[in-house]
């Protein structure tokens, strides 16, 4: 029977026969992930399960990236708990200090996730690895604890929505704009329980980093996974990350899709998700007179080197508006160093930006850029729920890095082409 990408990957990890959407299958997992917020709960459940050993000490990643460098005593205690567990269980992939970055930027860079893997993480943006052709999805801490002990978990085989992206977009438009527009069209529950599978000429031309940006936000449409086929570009990325043995992967001809969504991006403008849901999406020229107090460039969505280059191209030789705090957080130490080498950090600092450490920080209202009541931010992050970045009376607008950079200069939300 012809299979979708999701069905093919699930089949490769189970002895049961994957027949149809809705079926429940038990699968072996390739990697299990938790962070400084979710690992403490997972450890609590792991111990309550009476588990003693991890199923594989090389296949559990613990990344303390949300509140690190620890913002207060409570978060320091949580990280301490995770660190002690990691040492006791001999976890190979524990990250906290100068080798730590935002988990979904870090793990691909380290080659720990890749094509045809099944990755489950106690973080909803685990779906990012779909950009590399991995069936990757977020779960809660206790599901993660179970998988840490057993090396397997259960899945309901998702039905798949195929998304075909074609056309030639306008200037300063990229991966973030495609996914924002798609979420706008599908709605925040439009892909609930489902897999999204991306294809089309625009997708073929996208960089791996761009594909990860798109896959990252599949959850914002309710999706279980956002999957890309594995092509020569993917394999090149994986080899550079130190992986071996990966092979191409595509959906079977004749695979059954729940529906096909066609998106023509010809002439499309940069897209903005307005408060307070990621599906409240408008082209940038329809968002008028929106003064901002803060611009955040970073996160697991848009904190990679290509994103920083995009921001730097706009910021070069310009100054951020004096009423705007421009906060730039390269997502991993490797990205940070690369940005330093390329002179991007100097461009940022000359523009008046605050360049911070690799952390999730303000994206979830954790630290390093919290909003007061009545303040408004533009951010390259992934969620704009009420109060997400601070006060319940603050607002977050989501955009691509070029728009966030241009808006920081203008002091209001603006199309980079209008600078």
């Amino acid at each position, binding site marked *: 029977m012809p299979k979708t990408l999701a069905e093919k990957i699930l089949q490769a990890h189970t002895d049961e026969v994957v027949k149809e959407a809705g079926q429940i299958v038990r699968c072996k997992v390739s990697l299990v992930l938790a962070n400084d917020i979710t690992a403490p709960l997972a450890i609590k459940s792991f111990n309550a399960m009476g588990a003693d050993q991890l199923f594989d000490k090389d296949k559990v990643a613990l990344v303390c990236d949300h509140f690190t460098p620890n913002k207060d005593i409570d978060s320091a205690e949580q990280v301490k708990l995770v660190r002690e567990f990691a040492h006791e269980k001999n976890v190979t992939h524990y990250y906290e200090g100068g080798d730590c970055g935002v988990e979904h930027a870090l793990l691909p860079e380290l080659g720990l996730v890749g094509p045809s893997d099944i990755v489950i*993480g106690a973080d909803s943006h685990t779906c990012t690895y779909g950009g590399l052709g991995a069936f990757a999805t977020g779960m*809660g801490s206790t599901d993660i604890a*179970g998988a840490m002990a057993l090396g397997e978990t259960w899945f309901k085989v998702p039905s798949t929505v195929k998304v075909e992206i074609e056309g030639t977009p306008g200037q300063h438009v990229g991966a973030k704009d495609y996914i924002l527009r798609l979420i706008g069209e599908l709605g*925040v529950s439009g892909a609930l329980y489902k897999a999204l599978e991306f294809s089309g000429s625009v997708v073929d031309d996208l960089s791996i980093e761009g594909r990860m940006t798109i896959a990252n936000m599949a959850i914002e449409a309710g999706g279980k996974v956002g999957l890309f086929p594995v092509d020569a570009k993917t394999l090149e990325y994986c080899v550079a990350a130190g992986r071996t043995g990966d092979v191409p992967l595509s959906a079977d001809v004749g695979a059954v899709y729940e529906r096909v969504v066609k998106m023509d991006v010809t002439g499309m403008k940069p897209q903005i998700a307005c408060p307070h849901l990621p599906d409240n999406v408008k082209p940038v020229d329809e968002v008028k007179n929106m003064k901002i107090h803060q611009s955040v460039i970073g996160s697991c969505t848009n904190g990679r080197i290509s994103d920083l280059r995009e921001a730097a191209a706009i910021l070069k030789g310009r100054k951020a508006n004096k009423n705007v705090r421009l906060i730039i957080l390269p997502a991993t130490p490797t990205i940070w160093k690369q940005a330093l080498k390329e002179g991007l950090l100097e461009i940022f600092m000359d523009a008046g930006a605050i360049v911070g450490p690799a952390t999730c920080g303000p994206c979830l209202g954790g630290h390093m850029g919290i909003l007061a009541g009545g303040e408004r931010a533009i951010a390259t992050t992934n969620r704009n729920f*009420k*109060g997400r970045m601070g006060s319940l009376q603050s607002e977050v607008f989501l955009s691509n890095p070029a728009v966030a950079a241009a808006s920081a200069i203008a002091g209001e939300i603006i199309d980079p082409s209008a600078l």
Partner: protein
Amino acid sequence: MTIQGTAHRVGAHIDTDAIIPARFLVTTDSAELGANCMEGLEAGWIKRVKQNDIMVADENFGCGSSREHAPISLLGAGIPVVVAKSFARIFYRNGFNMGLILLEVGDDFEKLGDGDQLEVDADNGTIKNLTTGELITCSAVPPFMKEILNAGGLVDYVKNRLGN
């Protein structure tokens, strides 16, 4: 198991940042999380809730992050059941694993008004609105999930597996 309590109506797409904002995620203690439950929706919202009260929501309840602190905070606040038009995927799994009863009722959630007295029979999948007399039936729990539920939740399910 039968639960009787007052219904508290909330809207659609109630996200996990509304249920328990990230700034409270520096603990795993259910009472502490419960005290700050729904603080991202409205400050002090939870004060209206008494032990065994029931949350009633529109579609996609629990969307957003994977934080298990969300169902834990609801349980910690004394809410044992959420009835919704639909649930977000990760939240649904988490709720089950934590022992929070989740009943998906589609458009029938409209029949449950704010402040109505409800009687929920989770085993038989029925909700009686004692205020209006209306009876709602919901679909049965899938067999595999019943296996986890029968073991006493995921923690005990894995405990049994490891013991074998």
